């Protein structure tokens, strides 16, 4: 009862309230939606500690047992402590961790930014290797994928227009007609699926998350 029925009831009631507030603009009901979203940031603020506990716990265990790669675990924990320490220091001293000239900002600019940008830029390589491997005219479907990709690629660079002046126009047409059509179809389907899923959750039919 306490472990299963009450959580299901909480889900049902909060969900219903969220649906109702969508239709009732009058105070205080219409304002619940936005209010609850800031509640979620509070809850998420607490749950983050669970995540950090899991991450640090796992690497401390590795260290204790001297599992292979424990040296990297030290790096991870040091990195975490460094960012945390500089973050708190800058917050207190400069009023914001991201204040200009704060040591945290330095860490952000010269470590976080290059790491993020470099991981992101790996996509330039992977988009090439994925294209090489997957775009083979094996079947009719695969050929369509291949041809559409080639036309759009050629339409995006001056070189394509130099080969055949109509490439940019054709690429534009593929993006605005067949691409838009399929995207709409997918989106309507996704929305209906999401709607049904939400409904199943509210009604307690789908309860895997409470196992």
């Amino acid at each position, binding site marked *: 009862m306490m472990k299963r029925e009450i959580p299901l009831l909480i889900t049902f009631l909060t969900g219903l309230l969220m649906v109702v507030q*969508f239709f009732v603009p009058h105070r205080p009901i219409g304002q619940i939606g936005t209010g609850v979203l800031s509640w979620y940031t509070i809850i998420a603020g607490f749950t983050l500690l669970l995540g950090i506990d899991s991450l640090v716990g796992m690497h401390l265990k590795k260290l204790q047992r001297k599992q292979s790669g424990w040296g990297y675990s030290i790096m991870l924990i040091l990195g975490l402590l460094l960012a945390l320490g500089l973050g708190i220091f800058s917050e207190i001293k400069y009023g914001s961790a991201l204040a200009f000239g704060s040591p945290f900002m330095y860490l952000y600019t010269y470590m976080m930014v290059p*790491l993020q940008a470099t991981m992101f830029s790996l996509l330039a390589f*992977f988009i090439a290797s994925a294209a090489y491997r997957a775009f083979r005219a094996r079947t009719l479907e695969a050929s369509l994928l291949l041809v559409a990709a080639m036309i759009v690629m050629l339409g995006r660079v001056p070189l394509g227009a130099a080969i055949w002046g109509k490439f940019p126009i054709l690429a534009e047409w593929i993006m605005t007609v067949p691409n838009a059509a399929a995207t709409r179809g997918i989106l309507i389907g996704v929305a*209906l*699926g999401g709607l*049904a*899923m939400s409904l199943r959750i509210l009604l307690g039919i789908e309860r895997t*998350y*409470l*196992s």
Partner: protein
Amino acid sequence: MTGDGETRKRRVDQGLRRVLLVFAWLALLASTSSAALAPPENIKAFDTPNDAGGSNTITWKASPDDSLLLGYSVKRSAKPEGPFEEAGVVLKGQEEYRDGELKDGQKYFYRVDARIIGDSASSAVAGPAVPSAQWFNLGRVNILAFIMLFAGVVLWYIARAKKGAKLFIRRIAGLDAVEEAVGRSTEMGRPLMFIPGLLSIDDVTTLAALTILGRVARKAAEYDTPVLVPCTDPLVMTTAQEIVKQSYSEAGRPDAYREGNISYLTYDQFGYAAGCDGMMLREKPGAVFLQGYFYAESLILAETGHSIGAIQIAGTTAVDQLPFFVTACDYTLIGEEMYAASSYLTREPIMLGTLKGEDLIKLLIVLALTVGVVLETFGKHWIQALFQ
């Protein structure tokens, strides 16, 4: 420094628009001796419908000189004779302004000025408009009706399914591969990896992914193959731990469950991708499930997964990322298929009932689109009106 007159002169010289304005002025001055700029017309001020109160809406018909303007200034006063103060500014071409932070029940009067540099033309005064709050948003009746219809259809099919009606569901390619993927991993003595996407429990896609995780973990427990689940959200991590634990005990192997296999990495998008990639390279999973909502990291994960020779089964509702999963993975559950998969895997009649209901609604949408487009072509907007 330059005086104001010189400033204006220089600006006029520079922009074509200003030149046009000068011509317009000259033309107007030549024809009439006074009035230069035409004010907006047909001003209406009224309580904003379907809101929580505290706001009025003002509409007007654009000034004939609209193209020459900087914009419109909406002015408000408690009395029709003024004094008026500025409530807000909108760009030219616009014909509506919503004035907020007012007192409910109080009368307000409005005037709209067409503005150019150094001049403006005031409209007639409209009002009074009295802001108030509404109890029901009439603009959303169609959405309420749609929810009722949808819920009704789904519940009806669920009821039918409970009574034992046979419901057919077509096969979904990616799903049949789940068993194969788990089996192959086991043969190779490698673990499974399940990546539940970048969003938290706040997205239904993640919940669908977790349902799929439950089924995958159940199969894995039967085969005694570990499941690694790196997470980017702590709530997803904790929920995944519970789900996998449950699946193991359902399979009669609660002792084989390892909580450490379901771990938190980081919330940072590419930090998470870096961590997942590292895990793939070192643990060498035989199968990788990429199920959930993904952003640009989708291809980083999928290409790395491919490079270690894992069978990859992806599924996402993120339309932008589907092309990358389709090209790089062995199987991809496309959009709604992913939701369908979570129902399909349970094989419970109730779940299949909701799928049947969804299909009926889809059929209605197909019909509405077909008939609606024909009607639109003949200038009738009956069906379009339902979707406004």
